[in-house]
């Protein structure tokens, strides 16, 4: 019974869909909801709380875009995606935006026909070892057994690193992070390797974090950022500049607390253009002048998002490092709002 009803509605929607495939912005506005692909669960970046509300660093990008476009950060439908399903979901139009710690690489950008609109987190692969092993550098890991998630770029990075340093290692294949932690704690491997942010979260969750050290070497570049389909430049611009607005807001000292005040007009023309007191940047994007104001109001500036989910005051305790503003020696650099 269910089948036929569903198939009936399917036929109807298929007919409608034929006419209603305009730009993503129009689709989102017509739907009144942003469909955002997120991780099925990654500490600090995307996870549902006990009430089923999604929270995290990547989730806040979705919320900011929804606030800018729809005026309400809660009008997001989160689609949990796995490593396998994420690109298909985006390419087929099932989601409007993929915000799921996805590494920006050449082939994904060029061959898979996606547009990476920016970087919201610069990550890199690191190692964690037990303190009593006495290792202080990854260069000393010659001959070590290493727990490594199979089928990921981390596996390839690891092979490259050991090859270029003329060292050998024994891989212990694992499927998930949780399994890797378990194997590592049980002593099945000397070192555990994954993205540095993941290592920090893992170490923070151990019963004895003081007995484990994260080695200083970062062996890969993992610029993670939101992704959209290629070919809809207006939508790519909206997501790109929403992210830039969050980064610029931190640079100019605009926070969720003072954004209402600053939106009335300041001495700084850059802030005025960003928040819509001057110029018509919002209209150029196809939105209204308050778009960035709403996004910052809803989730805070980049620094606030970082501090709330993964920063040093949280149990994960990540330092800003590469993700500090360019004025602080980091890589976070928004092009000018002009």
């Amino acid at each position, binding site marked *: 019974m269910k089948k036929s009803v569903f198939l009936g509605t399917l036929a109807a929607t298929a007919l409608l869909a034929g006419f209603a495939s305009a730009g993503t912005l129009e689709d989102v506005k017509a739907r009144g909801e942003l469909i955002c692909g997120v991780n099925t669960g990654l500490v600090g970046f995307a996870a549902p709380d*006990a009430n089923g509300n999604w929270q995290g660093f990547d989730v806040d990008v979705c919320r900011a875009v929804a606030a800018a476009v729809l005026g309400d950060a809660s009008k997001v439908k989160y689609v949990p995606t796995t490593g396998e399903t994420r690109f298909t979901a985006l390419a087929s139009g099932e989601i409007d935006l993929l915000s799921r710690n996805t590494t920006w690489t050449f082939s994904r950008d060029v061959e898979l026909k996606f547009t990476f609109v920016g970087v919201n987190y610069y990550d890199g692969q690191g190692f964690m070892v037990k303190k009593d092993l006495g290792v202080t550098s990854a260069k000393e890991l010659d001959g070590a057994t290493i727990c490594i998630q199979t089928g990921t770029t981390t596996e390839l990075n690891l092979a490259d690193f050991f090859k270029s340093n003329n060292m050998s290692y024994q891989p212990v294949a694992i499927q998930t992070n949780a399994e890797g932690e378990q194997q590592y704690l049980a002593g099945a491997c000397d070192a555990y390797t994954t993205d540095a942010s993941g290592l920090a979260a*893992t170490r923070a969750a151990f019963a004895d974090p003081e007995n484990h050290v994260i080695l200083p070497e970062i062996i890969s570049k993992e610029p993670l950022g939101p992704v959209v389909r290629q070919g809809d430049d207006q939508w790519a611009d909206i997501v790109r500049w929403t992210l830039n607005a969050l980064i610029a807001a931190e640079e100019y000292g605009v926070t969720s607390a003072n954004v209402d005040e600053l939106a009335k007009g300041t001495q700084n023309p850059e802030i005025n253009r960003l928040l819509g007191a001057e110029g018509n940047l919002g209209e150029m994007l196809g939105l209204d002048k308050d778009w960035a104001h709403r996004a910052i109001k809803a989730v805070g500036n980049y620094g606030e998002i970082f501090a709330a989910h993964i920063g040093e005051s949280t149990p994960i305790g990540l330092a800003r490092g590469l993700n500090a503003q360019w004025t602080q020696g980091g890589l976070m650099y928004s092009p000018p709002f002009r």
Partner: protein
Amino acid sequence: MSDTHAQTELFVRHEMIPPSEPPALETGAIKWLRENLFSGWLNTILTILGLLVVFGLARLFLPWFLHGVWNANSLGECREIIAQTWGPDASGACWAMIRERWNQFMFGFYPRELYWRPVLALLFLLVGLAPVLYSELSSKLVAAGAVIAALIVVLAYNYGVWLPVGMLVTIAAVSAILDARGAKWPRNLLWFSALYPAVAFWLLWGGSVWLPFVAVLGFVLGFIVMRLVSAQLGAILGASAGAVAAVLWWSFGAGPLDEALIGMTGTARPFWLQTVTSDQFGGFVLAFTIGVTGIAASLPLGILLALGRRSDMPLVKVISVGFIEFIRGVPLITLLFVASLLLNYFLPPGTNFDIILRVIIMVTLFAAAYIAEVIRGGLAALPRGQYEAAAALGLDYWKSMRLVILPQALKISIPGIVSTFIGLFKDTTLVVFVGLLDPLKGITDAVRAAIEWKGIYWEPYLFVGSIFFIVCFSMSRYSMYLENKLKREHR
């Protein structure tokens, strides 16, 4: 003579000696132990070794279980409590996670204020299953019915909605009327079993009651047309005409009527329930939705495929064999990926073909292929005489199958069918690979991604595994009950 007799028989016992207790070594637990565990030196050694292993395992795991913490807000708190109560080196389970995330394991992201709907759907499922699983009334069944009715009332009271009670009263009233007209309990509930898919759909997904209503009308229409045409032109044409009528109704009649009825009632209660979309399903609500629908739909499909494979009609046979062999030759995960990824490319962009429905279809097809082969085994086990006897009675194909062959073949196939069902139910956890939040891995990983519970490993698996065990074990016990009940051989 008599003197002699008096001298030789000094004592004559007039009553039997009461039977004495058997020797202590030949009775009760000791006898059982001697016969089963210590019957020889080899068995004695094995018994002692076995005891040592059990003891070792218990020493390893029992403290972990017993030190379990139920009240804490994070894994760190759990560890603190355990360290405080049992010493710094003690290990213990952190069951508090299950306590805090119980709702997520059960309902996924289903809106909290609507939890009564999936629960009600489950209770009604039991009601709908009663006439299918049990043919006569027993005191246990009456007790179960009373408990379910009480639970429904409590549920309605807790959530402040009276729809469940209204539905319960309707079911009881209609069944009581049927009872008075000759259909005995629990047979008189069969009408509800037939209606249950529509009721469950409405309760789970919500929306207007008229959508499932017009869909059911299609079945009714098809059935009436089939009856009318069959009487005139025979069974095959009748079934085809019925199917065509139903499809025509769903294609052209159902939509306008649905809209007209919705236009009349709008979103007024009790014709409207708040809509819940498929992405809010998760946990055991998802596992049960997929599992129960798959089980219910795969059995009839499997029977048809089994009959098709043994059919004399070449086309039917080729299609059945091709379908069964193809589906059985492909891993379920492949089918799920096809449902989730490949279909997205084939369907026009923007089409929203419900992901749960896609998964249900794939799981059903997969299980149906296995069921078909299990039933074919049952069909093959029947002596040829049974087929010939059915033909000799003048029964046509469908009647001989329905009345003579299938009842016997299905009885033989029960263990295999139930095995397939159990496998299907457990396979529902594979949906995690297409991004649905199954209870075993999807929800568990999502919970672990919260910083409070990161690092927890065994507890969620043990919890979800034990619920799966309860459900699968019940299915297995029911199949044993059914086998015993249907046993006709005198062995």
